[in-house]
C-alpha cells in the first residue's frame, strides 16, 4: 500500500530534484485517463443500445414484429420525458453543448448531462429511432473530461481545453475512427486548429479507441470490399455526386432546422408528445423498410457489398432523410452523424447504380461510390472537409478512393454553402440563441499581421546625432508618441515625446540626443508576426522597429499603436487634456482607417 502511495506521490508531486512530470506531461497523462474513461462509458453505451435493440426491434419472441411501429414512439417519448423532467442538460446536440462549454462556461459540463445523455440516447436509438450514437458519445466524453478536470482542479485555460479532449475520446470510441475523431473535434468543436492541444486530443482519442476495441473487438463498422477506381472519366460522375449530395445536404439542413424552429415555438408541454408522433411515423416506415430503423450501420455494410438495387438505395436514403429530419426537428435524443452517413451511402450507391446503366465508359465498384457518398453528405451537412476525407480513408483503409472523395467533398461543400451559409450545428445554435464560433467564420476573418499595419518609411527613425529640437520637430510631424533612435547600424532605442519636451524646457534644445537624452532599449518585430503578438510588445514599447528575418539589422519599417489602430479601422479620439507619459500621450488626431 505504501509502495503504491509512493508511486502515486512520485507521479504527482515535486521531488527534491524537481517535478517527475512537468505540466504538459501531466496534462497528457490526464488525456489518457480521460480517453480510458470515455472509452469505457462508450462501450457500455454501445452495448446498452444493442441490448435494447434486441429486446425491442430484433426480438426473437413470436409476434414481436407487430410491435415494431410502436417501439420508436415509446422510446422517443420516454427519452424526451426524461430530458424534460429529469435531465434538461441532456437536451440538444452534443457538439453545440460541448462548444458552449468551451466558449461560454470555462469547460464546465455537469456530470448529470453525461448520465442523462446515456439514458435518453439509449432509449431513443435502442428502440429504433433513426439517430446515431456518436454525437451523444461526444458529449459524454466531454462531460467525463470536464468532471475529471474539476477533480484535478485544472486552471481555467486547461478546463477549456479539456472538454474537446473528452469529446474526441467519445466520438473516437463510438465510431472507431481515431483520426477522424481528432479532426472532427478540431473542425466542429474547437473551430480552430490548435496545435497546443492536438497531442492531448490524439492521445485521448487513441486510448478511447483502444479501450473500445479491447471490449468490443477489432470489428470495423463496415467491411469495405476491395475497391478499384476505373476510368478517370468517372471523376465527372464523382463530381456530380458531390453536387447532388451538396444540394441535398443543404435542403436537409434547411428543412430540418425549419421544422425544429417551428416546433420550438410551441409551448413546451405540447412538445412532449412530438417525439412519440415522430417515432410512430418512423416505426410505420420501419415496418415496410426495416433498414431505416436505428443507426443503420449494417445497411451501409450491405450497400458496400452491392446488396441493394440502385432504386431501392435511393428510396431508403430518402426515407431515412425524412425520418431523421422529423426526429431531429421533434427533439428525439440522438445524433446526426450515423444517419448522415446512411443517407450519403444510399445516395452514392444509388447514383452509382444509375450511372452504370447510362454511363458509356467503365465504372468503379458500387463500394467506391458508397464511400464517396458518405463523405459527400457528411461534408455537406457538417462542413467538416478534413474529417469527411479522413473518415472515408479510415473506413476503407485504402488510398484508392481518396481522390474522388476529395473532389466530390469539395464540390459538396461549395454547393451546400452556396445554398445555406451555416452548418446544421451552427443553425441549431442560432436557433437556441447561441452565437458560437465556427471554423468557416474564422477562416473568413483573416488575422492581421505586422506587415498589414507597419509604416514602410523611416519617418520615425532618427540618428542619435541630431538635436533635441530636430527630434521634436520630427515627432510632432507624426502621430507617434515616441521616436526610434538608431544608435548604431541595426541597433535602435526609443525616446518619448515627453522626455524630449522636458529636455527642451531644460535648455538642451540644441544638444544632440546621445549627449542629452536617456534612451531605452527596444525589441524588434517581424512583418509576418500576427498583430496580436506585436500588440503585446507595444504594451511595453511605444514604437517597434520592423526588420527582416534574413537580416535583422535591416530596417523595413516601424510600428506604433496608431498604426495598429489604423489597420483595425479604429478612429482615435482627440485627447481632451494634456496627456502625460507614453501610451496616453497627446497623440495628434489619428488618420481614419
Amino acid at each position, binding site marked *: 500500500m505504501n509502495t*503504491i*502511495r509512493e508511486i*502515486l*506521490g512520485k*507521479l*504527482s*508531486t*515535486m521531488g527534491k530534484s524537481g517535478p517527475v*512530470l512537468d505540466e504538459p506531461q*501531466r496534462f497528457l497523462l*490526464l488525456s489518457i*485517463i480521460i480517453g*480510458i*474513461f470515455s472509452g*469505457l*462509458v462508450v*462501450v*457500455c453505451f454501445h*452495448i446498452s443500445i*444493442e*441490448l435494447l435493440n*434486441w429486446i425491442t426491434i*430484433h426480438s*426473437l419472441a413470436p409476434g414481436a414484429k407487430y410491435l415494431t411501429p410502436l417501439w420508436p414512439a415509446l422510446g422517443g417519448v420516454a427519452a424526451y420525458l426524461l430530458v424534460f423532467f429529469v435531465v434538461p442538460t441532456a437536451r440538444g446536440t452534443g457538439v453545440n453543448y460541448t462548444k458552449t462549454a468551451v466558449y461560454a462556461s470555462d469547460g464546465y459540463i455537469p456530470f448529470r448531462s453525461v448520465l442523462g445523455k446515456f439514458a435518453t440516447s439509449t432509449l431513443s436509438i435502442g428502440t429504433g429511432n433513426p439517430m446515431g450514437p456518436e454525437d451523444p458519445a461526444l458529449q459524454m466524453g466531454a462531460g467525463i473530461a470536464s468532471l*475529471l478536470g474539476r*477533480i*484535478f*482542479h*485544472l*486552471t*481555467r485555460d*486547461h478546463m477549456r481545453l479539456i472538454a474537446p479532449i473528452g469529446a474526441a475520446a467519445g466520438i473516437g470510441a463510438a465510431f472507431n475512427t481515431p483520426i477522424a475523431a481528432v479532426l472532427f473535434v478540431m473542425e466542429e468543436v474547437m473551430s480552430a486548429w490548435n496545435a497546443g492541444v492536438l497531442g492531448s486530443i490524439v492521445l485521448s482519442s487513441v486510448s478511447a479507441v483502444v479501450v473500445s476495441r479491447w*471490449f*468490443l*473487438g477489432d*470489428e470495423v463498422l463496415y*467491411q469495405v*470490399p*476491395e475497391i478499384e477506381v476505373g476510368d478517370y472519366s468517372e471523376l465527372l460522375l464523382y463530381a456530380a455526386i458531390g453536387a447532388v449530395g451538396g444540394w441535398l445536404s443543404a435542403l436537409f439542413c434547411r428543412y430540418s432546422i425549419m421544422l425544429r424552429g417551428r416546433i420550438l415555438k410551441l409551448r413546451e408541454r405540447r412538445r412532449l408528445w412530438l417525439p412519440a408522433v415522430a417515432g410512430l411515423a418512423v416505426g410505420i416506415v420501419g415496418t415496410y423498410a426495416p433498414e431505416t430503423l436505428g443507426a443503420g450501420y*449494417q445497411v451501409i*455494410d*450491405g450497400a*458496400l*457489398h*452491392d*446488396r441493394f438495387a440502385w432504386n431501392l438505395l435511393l428510396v431508403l436514403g430518402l426515407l431515412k432523410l425524412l425520418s431523421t429530419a422529423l426526429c431531429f426537428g421533434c427533439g428525439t435524443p440522438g445524433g446526426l452523424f450515423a444517419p448522415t452517413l446512411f443517407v450519403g451511402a444510399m445516395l452514392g450507391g444509388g447514383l452509382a447504380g444509375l450511372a452504370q446503366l447510362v454511363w458509356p465508359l467503365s465504372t468503379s*465498384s*458500387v*463500394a467506391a461510390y458508397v464511400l464517396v457518398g458518405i463523405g459527400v453528405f457528411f461534408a455537406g451537412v457538417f462542413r467538416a472537409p478534413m474529417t469527411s476525407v479522413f473518415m472515408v480513408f479510415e473506413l476503407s483503409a485504402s488510398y484508392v478512393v481518396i481522390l474522388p472523395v476529395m473532389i466530390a467533398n469539395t464540390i459538396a461543400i461549395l454547393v451546400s454553402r452556396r445554398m445555406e451559409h451555416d452548418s446544421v450545428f451552427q443553425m441549431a445554435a442560432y436557433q437556441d440563441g447561441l452565437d458560437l464560433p465556427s471554423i468557416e467564420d474564422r477562416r473568413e476573418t483573416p488575422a492581421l499581421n505586422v506587415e498589414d499595419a507597419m509604416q514602410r518609411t523611416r519617418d520615425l527613425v532618427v540618428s542619435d546625432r541630431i538635436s533635441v529640437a530636430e527630434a521634436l520637430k520630427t515627432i510632432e510631424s507624426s502621430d507617434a508618441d515616441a521616436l526610434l533612435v538608431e544608435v548604431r547600424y541595426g541597433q535602435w532605442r526609443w525616446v518619448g515625446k515627453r522626455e524630449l519636451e522636458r529636455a527642451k524646457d531644460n535648455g538642451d534644445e540644441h544638444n544632440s540626443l546621445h549627449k542629452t537624452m536617456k534612451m531605452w532599449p527596444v525589441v524588434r518585430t517581424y512583418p509576418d508576426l500576427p498583430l496580436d503578438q506585436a500588440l503585446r510588445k507595444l504594451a511595453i514599447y511605444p514604437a517597434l522597429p520592423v526588420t527582416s528575418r534574413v537580416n535583422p539589422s535591416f530596417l523595413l519599417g516601424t510600428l506604433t499603436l496608431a498604426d495598429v489602430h489604423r489597420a483595425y479601422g479604429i478612429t482615435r479620439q482627440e485627447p481632451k487634456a494634456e496627456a502625460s507619459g507614453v501610451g496616453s500621450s497627446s497623440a495628434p488626431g489619428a488618420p481614419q482607417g
Partner: protein
Amino acid sequence: MAKRYICLVCRNEIAHPNAECPYCKARSVIAEGASPRILGMVFGVMAAVFAVTGFYAKSFKAERSTRGQHHFGVAQELLAEGNHANAIKEYRNALSYAKEEPDYRLGLARALFEDERYAETENHLVDLRSQDPTSGILNYLLAQLAAREGRLDEAVSYYRTAIHGRWEGDTEGRRLNLRLELVDLLETPGRDEQLAAELIALAEIMPDDRGIQHKLGALMLRTQLFDRASSLFQTLLEADPRDHEALLGRGEAEFQLGNYITARTQYNRAKLVQDDDATNERIALCNRIIELDPTRRGIGLRERFRRSRVLIERARAATLKCQNPSGDAFVGPLVALPAGLASALENADQALAGRPGRATDETVEANTLTAEELWNQASPLCEASGPPDPPLVHVMAKLSR
C-alpha cells in the same frame, strides 16, 4: 498531480490559497493539480468501471454469440431446403450479431450464389478471400462465380488456386473433382493448351470411374496427347477388351501416331464388337495408307522401290490437282509457279521419266526425298483447295516425322 495554487490574474504560483499574490497583489487564487489521494481514487474508480464494463461486455458477447448461432442454424436448414431467400435473411441476421464470423459470411455468400445474386456474392467472397487467400472453398466458389459470369480466365485462375488450396476432410477427392470441373470448363474452344496441361496433371491421379476415363481419353485425343490417350485406352481395354469406345479411341490414337497397322487392328476389333460405316471407312483408309507406305517393315526392296515411285506420281498428281482444282485441261496455270515448286516438279518429272532404274536403297531414298520435296512445296497450294489424296497426306506426314 500535486495541488498548486495559481493566481488567476498573472498565472504565477502562490504558496498558500489565502495569500495575496506577491506579483500582482491579486487575491484570486485557484487550486491546480490533485493530491496523490485523488489520483489513487481516480485509478481505483477506473479499475472498478473497467471490471463492470468487462462483465457487461462479456455477457453481451455471449448473448450475441447465442443469437448469431441461432440464426445461423436456421439459415443452414433453410439453405438445405432450397429456401434461398429466407436463408439469406437469416444469414444476414446472424451476421448482424457477428460481422466478422467467416462461416456466417460464407453461408450468406453460398445462399446468395444459389439465389443468383452474383455481384453481392462476389463482394462477400472477395472479402473473405482477402482474409484467407489459400482457402480452397472460397477460391472454388469464386471460380464457379466467375465461370457462371463467363469470366473464364478468372475462373481458371481461381480453380487452380482452389486445387492447390487448403481443404478440410477428403482433400485428394476434392482436388480430383475440381480438376475434372476445370477440365469441363476448359472444353470450350481455344483453350486446348490449358486443357492439355490439366489432362496431363489428371493422368497422374486418374480416377477409377470408366466413364470419366473415356471422357478424358477423348479429350486427350482432342488435345493431341495421343501417347497418353493410347495408354489410357489400353488400360481400359485390359479391363474390358470388348469396350467399343476404347477400341476406337486407341485406334484413333495409334492412327494419329502413325502406327497404322496397330490402328487397323483396333478398328477391326471394334468392328467385331459393332460394325458401322465410320469404322469401315477408317479401316479402308488404314489399308490404303499401309499399301502406299514405302517405309513399312517387312516389304522387299522392289516393292519399296515401286511404292516410292507411286509416291512421286501421286504427289505430282496431287500437286497438279491443287494447282488446278477444276481439272480443266484447257485452262493453264494463270499464276506462275513458285520457283521451288517448279524445280520440285521438274525433279519429279525427271525421276519418273524413262524406264525405272534399279531398285536400290539409294534410289528408294532418292525417290522418297523427291516426293517429300514436291509435297512440301505443294502443301501451301493444297491447304487452300483441301487434301486431294488422304492416304498420301498421312504417308507424307509419317515420313516427315
